[in-house]
């Protein structure tokens, strides 16, 4: 298994509070991704990063921000959590886009916003 961890694994929070999810990798992969997974929608890309301090928006980026100050860490922040952000969040990594590479996924974080 690729060395990807996510923390926390479960979190319950209240509407309006800030939340930060962490993705940590030990593979030195350049590309990192944040997805959310909801019933009926599959996986949807929130943000991705192609290097330290280089990030870009995905399909459903509104209400989320990210930061990548080190190769191994990719943080996802919900500035003011809403109930619609209740979801399972997956981090993924990939080695390159110069040659096609699959993505390896972390174990997921289940976030509940009350």
């Amino acid at each position: 298994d690729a060395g990807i961890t996510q923390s926390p694994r479960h979190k319950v929070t209240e509407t309006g509070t800030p939340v930060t999810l962490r993705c940590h990798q030990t593979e030195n992969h350049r590309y990192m991704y944040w997805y959310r997974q909801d019933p009926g929608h599959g996986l949807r890309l929130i943000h991705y990063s192609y290097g330290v301090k280089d990030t870009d928006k995905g399909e459903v980026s509104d209400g989320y921000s990210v930061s990548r100050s080190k190769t191994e860490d990719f943080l996802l922040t919900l500035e003011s959590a809403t109930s619609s952000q209740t979801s399972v969040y997956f981090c993924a990594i990939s080695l390159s886009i110069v040659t096609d590479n699959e993505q390896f996924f972390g174990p997921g974080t289940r976030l509940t916003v009350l």
Partner: protein
Amino acid sequence: EDKVVQSPLSLVVHEGDTVTLNCSYEVTNFRSLLWYKQEKKAPTFLFMLTSSGIEKKSGRLSSILDKKELFSILNITATQTGDSAVYLCALRTVNNDMRFGAGTRLTVKP
């Protein structure tokens, strides 16, 4: 908008049956198409397809891409209860964005 549609949404079969899962897309230009298996946790990689008409095979699973007709199929022969999972199809776009389908939930009964 780039769109990936999987069918059927769910499927129930018995052990030993052969199943074909479909993935059609509307993305006009992409780098690769990927298949994943998701049980209770994170998706795990099955296949990556980049060229049309070339079958990828791993044990009882195989997959092929048709770029002309804009679809891919995932075949599973001699299904086992351990094949029960959600199967996800995804496209990696030229911008390295990833677009996933909603998945097909396969249930294999003994």
